[in-house]
């Protein structure tokens, strides 16, 4: 059993073990799941080691038959695209458990069991190399999240949970149908086999066939992202979900959609993806501006952050469908960034909710006087979220915008409006909630961040600075994986794509070139 299998199986084992722990010993359950998830996180760090030696390739691969007929294989592995998303999942699970330490006091056992099951599903989604296995993990994620919202959520939790469930199911049913069609045609669910067949021209589709398959997959993923106008489940799910649910949902679950688009839509259906790209980009651009404008006028903090996610994830889609290295790298980097900064925002909003039991912005005001450190952490997270250079989001946004600029400066200009607007809604939120005279009924409730909460926040703060200043840790492996996917996404595409992407390269030939800038 290699390290990846261990990292994958431990949350499942934890899920089963938690179920047999005594129901009334809440502290034991909390401690057990925290220690276990921390151990999983530490183990998962071991998965990164090959990527520092060579950014390329699939690692920790296991490929054994699972079901004979239809042939479904247990085929898992990590590459530069998935490794950091796995780490993101294993990092945010213990953080979410820590955040829920006091907040969750009913059905403690089930809560923690679901958190671990969710972790299992998320890791599985990112490491599955078999389409059917991927689908199983995809659905596994759905169940615990449904219950996290539906059981531990706020007043309208059932509505939100059902909305979340139906939206997602609607998409995944189509995806399943497309997968089965694909299987009937290629006689394999194996991702690497499929890509290989397509690359070598052994498997080809008619234009219509490919378009329908692409759309079936894409729709399932786009709902998850969520891409405008499929986003309305998100604000409800976030507002009603408990803090841990919001964190996992925003930080990791939305990335299932964006990750899968890059992983599956681009290499499997390259022509259709490129044909649809302009339309998808238009939706992404609308989402960027629309999400930001709607976020601006939200009276509820969680809704504000939720709509800001619609805006931020528009950048990921824009970068992906720019079909060039910078755009795709930026998109993947932005997946991680959004996970960290928006995860942190939901966490901090959760801290504030625990103190005051309100999410309405107007109920706050002047929080920085009684809670200066909480305000400082919130401010840093805000700055990360609005793309301040030296913090993480800047790198992603810069690369996405640069990538889109190679295709169309108009796209870039529209998307950059989202950058202006992000400052508007986040700073306005910060001003109304944290600055000014302290709101009367906050007095006595609004104590500063405590050591447990700080312990949950600090890893995210460190990552914001780390990812913003030292991209060498993350970017080379991401770049290598993306280069391969870009190569695959050119199958059957004529050379005109190359010509467009290499516009810069040609211009460079006249100017002095060189990989290393400046004198050393």
């Amino acid at each position, binding site marked *: 059993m290699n390290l990846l299998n261990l990292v994958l199986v431990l949350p499942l084992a934890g899920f089963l073990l938690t179920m047999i722990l005594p129901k009334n010993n809440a502290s034991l359950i909390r401690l057990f799941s925290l220690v276990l998830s921390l151990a999983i996180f530490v183990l998962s760090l071991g998965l990164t080691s090959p990527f520092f030696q060579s950014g390329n390739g699939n690692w920790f691969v296991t490929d054994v038959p699972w079901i004979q007929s239809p042939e479904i294989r247990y085929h898992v592995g990590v590459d530069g695209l998935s490794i950091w998303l796995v780490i993101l999942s294993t990092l945010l699970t213990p953080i979410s458990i820590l955040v829920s330490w006091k907040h969750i006091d009913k059905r403690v056992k089930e809560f923690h069991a679901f958190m671990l099951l969710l972790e299992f599903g998320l890791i599985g989604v990112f490491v599955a190399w078999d389409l059917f296995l991927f689908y199983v993990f995809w659905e596994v994620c759905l169940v615990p999240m449904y219950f996290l919202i539906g059981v531990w959520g706020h007043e309208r939790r059932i509505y939100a949970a059902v909305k979340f469930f139906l939206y997602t199911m609607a998409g995944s049913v189509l995806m399943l149908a497309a997968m089965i069609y694909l299987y009937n045609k290629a006689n394999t669910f194996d991702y690497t086999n499929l890509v290989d067949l397509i690359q070598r021209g052994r498997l080809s589709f008619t234009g219509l066939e490919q378009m329908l398959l692409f759309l079936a997959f894409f729709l399932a993923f786009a709902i998850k992202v969520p891409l405008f106008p499929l986003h309305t489940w998100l604000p409800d799910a976030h507002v009603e979900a408990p803090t841990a649910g919001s964190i996992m949902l925003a930080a990791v679950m939305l990335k299932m959609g964006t990750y899968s688009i890059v992983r599956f839509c681009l290499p499997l259906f390259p022509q259709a993806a490129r044909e649809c790209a302009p339309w998808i980009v238009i939706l992404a651009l609308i989402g960027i501006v629309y999400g930001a404008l709607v976020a601006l006028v939200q009276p509820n903090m969680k809704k504000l952050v939720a709509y800001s996610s619609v805006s931020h994830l528009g950048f990921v889609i824009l970068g992906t469908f720019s079909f060039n*290295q910078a755009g795709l790298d930026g998109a993947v980097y932005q997946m991680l960034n959004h996970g960290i900064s928006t995860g942190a925002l939901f966490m901090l909003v959760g801290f504030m909710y625990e103190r005051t039991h309100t999410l309405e912005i107007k109920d706050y005001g002047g929080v920085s006087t009684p809670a200066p450190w909480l305000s400082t952490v919130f401010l840093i997270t805000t700055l990360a979220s609005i793309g301040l250079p030296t913090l993480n989001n800047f790198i992603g946004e810069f690369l996405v915008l640069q990538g889109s600029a190679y295709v169309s*400066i108009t796209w870039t200009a529209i998307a950059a409006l989202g950058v202006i607007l992000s400052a508007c809604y986040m700073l306005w939120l910060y001003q109304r909630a944290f600055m000014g005279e302290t709101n009367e009924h906050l007095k006595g409730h609004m104590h500063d961040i405590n050591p447990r909460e700080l312990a949950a926040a600090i890893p995210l703060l460190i990552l914001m600075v780390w990812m913003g200043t030292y991209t060498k840790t993350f970017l080379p492996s991401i770049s290598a994986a993306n280069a391969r996917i870009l190569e695959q996404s050119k199958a059957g595409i004529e050379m005109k794509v190359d010509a467009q992407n290499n516009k810069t390269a040609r211009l460079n030939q006249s100017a002095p070139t060189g990989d290393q*800038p400046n004198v050393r």
Partner: protein
Amino acid sequence: MNDQQLWLIPALPLAGFLINGLFGKKFPNILVSIIAVASVLGSFAWVLKTLGALGDLEHAHVEHYLTWIQSGPVNIGVDLAVDRLTAVMLLVVTGIGSLIHIYAVGYMSHEGGYYRFFAYLNLFMFFMLTLVMGANFLLLFVGWEGVGLCSYLLIGFYILKKSAGDAAKKAFVVNRVGDFGFSLAMFLIMVQFGSLDFQKVFEAVKPLPVDQTPGILTAIALLLFVGAAGKSAQVPLYVWLPDAMEGPTPVSALIHAATMVTAGVYMTARAAVIFQHSPLAMDVVATVGLITAVMAATIGLTQYDIKKVFAYSTVSQLGYMFIACGVGAFSAGIYHVVTHAFFKALLFLGAGSVIHALSGEQDLRHMGGLAKKIPITFAVLACAWVAIAGVPPFAGFFSKDEILLAAHHHAPWMYWVGVITAGMTAFYVSRAMFMCFFGSYRGHHHPHESPFVMWGPLAVLAVLSLAGGWYFKVPHYLEPVFPVAEGHHDETLVYISVAAGVIGIGLAALMYLIKPGLPDTISGALGPIYKLVYNKYFVDEVYDATIVNPMVAGSRGVLWRIFDAGIIDGIVNGTAVVARTVGGGLRLLQSGNIRSYAAWVTLGCVVVLLALGVMSGGVK
């Protein structure tokens, strides 16, 4: 060549920020001040040492530290560089920065949040130094956004005041509009030249013939200027700077007068090669500079808040600097950056000293006769006064002279508008001085002179304001970077501009010393025009009515309530009515029994597998 340890220059203030920011709350004030001041003085010392070691700096000295971003064709290094332009900026930033840090030790001694103030101020120094030393556009942009952040934090320093919060947010958002242009310019540069390194980009631009420059260079130059106009408060993006005076006065002096707001001028001068390739962009720069200079000066004539007068003065003087850039006299623009840093920092710090003496009073109408009560402050402010009014041979005279001559060479009408503005400048500063220091005292406080820690730095700045223009021959020093513009030194033109300054002072003396009733008579006679100017041309109100309010109302009324909640969710909920019945059923499954959940999960998988088996032709 990695031998000058340039990184130490920004790193020292950064260390000061980290120490004070993390632990300053527990430190006594004296320790906080020592850390803050020492870090900036250390940086200043390292600048001097470095410049000494680098000698004449005919060519830029570049140090590469690490690759920041590497993705496909995008390669951005953390590279710092020093050339003569940067050297000038470094001296101004660390020199004036040190003085203002020392001054602030006295000024802020009674304020809460002492450590926070100095932490932010140090952080500002870090970003400002990154801005002037960055060897590529993106690193410049890092500093650019960073100083904007510090400006935001320091304008909003008095967190309990709503007006401070509003002003801070306004500054950040308006600057973001400028940054929008700047970043688009960067993306275009990257697409066009494949690099953001100054050396590579400018070397690629230089050989292009000016008369057949592709339009893309004009686009780049104009977009860069949008950024510059945001940071350096030019029409139509100047509206944040007057409001920025909500911040503590040392901040107004350091950030909103001497250094940060000149970053736009620095950036334009840095990208001079690009601008020179676009005559259209150059005309836009000069024209916008001219409009800003005149418009802000007229507003300055009518304001009563001493800091607001100086704030509009800053906007106007920044306009002057852009006139210089626009007519191709980049070195004159930087010259004015330097002299302006001397006398405007002094004006603000002196105003701070007055405000300090009057326990927070800022209204000129409640001052008067302070010359005898706070003589040192008066003496140093008088030095700034003659410097900004363009009286020879003081600092402002030299740089303003250079700009006006260059403007005349480019287009005589620009010279004349500049001369009129110079007259207005002399008038409003004299007006402020007369209302503040002459006549009889009209307030209720008991004025007290500031301590040495405050007037010490003022004295240094006073000397610089008097002699700095004559002593530092900036244009000459910058010749390797910006070849001197041709044109002869016309004595008549100099006399005319000096005369304009003297007339301005004389008029102010007439109106505010000799015939004190005159201003009211004139403003009464001008009626609506006076009102228009006094209310700053209602620009803020127009922006609110045409941009801010429609955006908020539209987002709330149309996008959110109608489109999002109404149309999209209406469709979804239509489906959900059906779903709710299902949801009711699902609720029964929620038994709380974990084994039953697990059973459902397993069952679900089995069903899917079976379905699959059936569809693919049955289990063999």
